[in-house]
């Protein structure tokens, strides 16, 4: 960006963009008893192509309508017509209950995928009490590549369901096993609606 008046450059000579920051907010979606939340390239001002090499999705207080459900995601290679890309993933967690009866670090095989086309959970047994929620950051690398599989990493924290309330720190990672460009992503609960919560989408420049 520059400031030019009557063809005379007053300031910058084109270098202002260096101060604009590498993390660019693209879109915010807020759930209200929503079945799904989707970010589709070219729809509703969403950019989800090779403009950015890294995309991040941040989750703020995702609250399920149904107890012991999980926020989950899938991706699409046909701009949202189908969300069913094969994925191989891992999941481990650090878990600590409010009564101190359980303090665990373990791999959770129930929440990984082995070439599964289903939705990948991003939390573990979320509670739906009034103050319970899930937060975290999903990073998706180079979704527009037509050479490589599409890696992702997620770290988050959620309130465990009210039967055994506690903190669950979840770590999920893996890849969507496709060399087609990923151009859409969808989030939903494993069962029931997303009662409330916000997901923000960012693009990371120059990375």
């Amino acid at each position, binding site marked *: *960006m520059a400031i030019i008046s009557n063809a005379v450059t007053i300031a910058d000579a084109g270098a202002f963009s260096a101060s604009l*920051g*590498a993390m660019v907010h693209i879109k915010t979606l807020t759930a209200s008893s929503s079945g799904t939340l989707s970010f589709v390239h070219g729809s509703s001002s969403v950019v989800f192509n090779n403009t950015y090499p890294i995309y991040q999705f941040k989750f*703020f207080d995702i609250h399920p309508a149904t107890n012991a459900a999980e926020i989950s995601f899938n991706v699409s290679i046909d701009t949202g017509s189908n969300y069913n890309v094969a994925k191989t993933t891992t999941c481990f967690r650090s878990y*600590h209950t*409010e009564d101190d009866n359980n*303090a665990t670090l373990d791999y959770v095989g129930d929440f990984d995928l082995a070439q599964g086309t289903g939705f990948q959970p991003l939390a573990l047994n979320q509670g739906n009490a009034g103050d319970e929620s899930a*937060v975290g950051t999903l990073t998706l690398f180079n979704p527009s590549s037509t050479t490589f599989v599409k890696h992702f990493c997620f770290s988050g*924290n959620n309130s465990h369901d009210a039967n055994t309330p506690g903190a669950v*720190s979840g770590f999920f990672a893996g890849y969507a096993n496709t060399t087609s460009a990923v151009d859409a992503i969808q989030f939903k609960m494993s069962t029931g609606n997303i009662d409330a919560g916000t997901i923000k989408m960012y693009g990371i420049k120059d990375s």
Partner: protein
Amino acid sequence: MGVISNGTTLLDAGALDSGVATGAMTLIKTLTASSSANLSFVDGSSSVIFDNTYAEYVFKFYNMHPATDDKNFQFQTSVDGGSNYGVTATTTCFRAGKNEDNSTSTFGYFAADDLTQSTSYQRLDAGRTGNDADSGMSGTLQIFNPSSTTFVKHFIHDGNTHKSNNQSMHALVAGYFNTTSAIDAINFQFASGNIDSGVIKMYGIK
């Protein structure tokens, strides 16, 4: 942002930021320790914003160096503008460690540094930080939606420490402050002794 010449606003009158992408990550405040007992970020004090302006706040630690050897770097939050730092928290902690002489490798849940509905300070180094001249701790702490009056306040920390026994310790700490009151201040300190040196930067994520 505006363009002002000789006291006259040529462009913007301060509104240009609303129309120009300025990036989503905003530096709010930098604090530098110099034999400091603690470092605090309090909403409304010393230009700190710590309210519903941002949905996420990020604190980055650069070489937090204790005055006293073998001490935990730790934090707590406040719901009363920093008058009290003692919000009830339930948290998890696990770690991966490696000694410089290859004598010990560590990986596992670290119950000594978790909290169970406790108002104590939360440790962030999963061990203790050394005070050799080249020791210290660095990392990143995220706090989500601290101003919510509906939900508990989740946080996630990922950092690395140079311990006094010449061990590299990767600490991953997360949990929630079990309050539905808005959190508006945060305090960092070593378990005892001063913060000899180090920098903490606070960011807001739009």
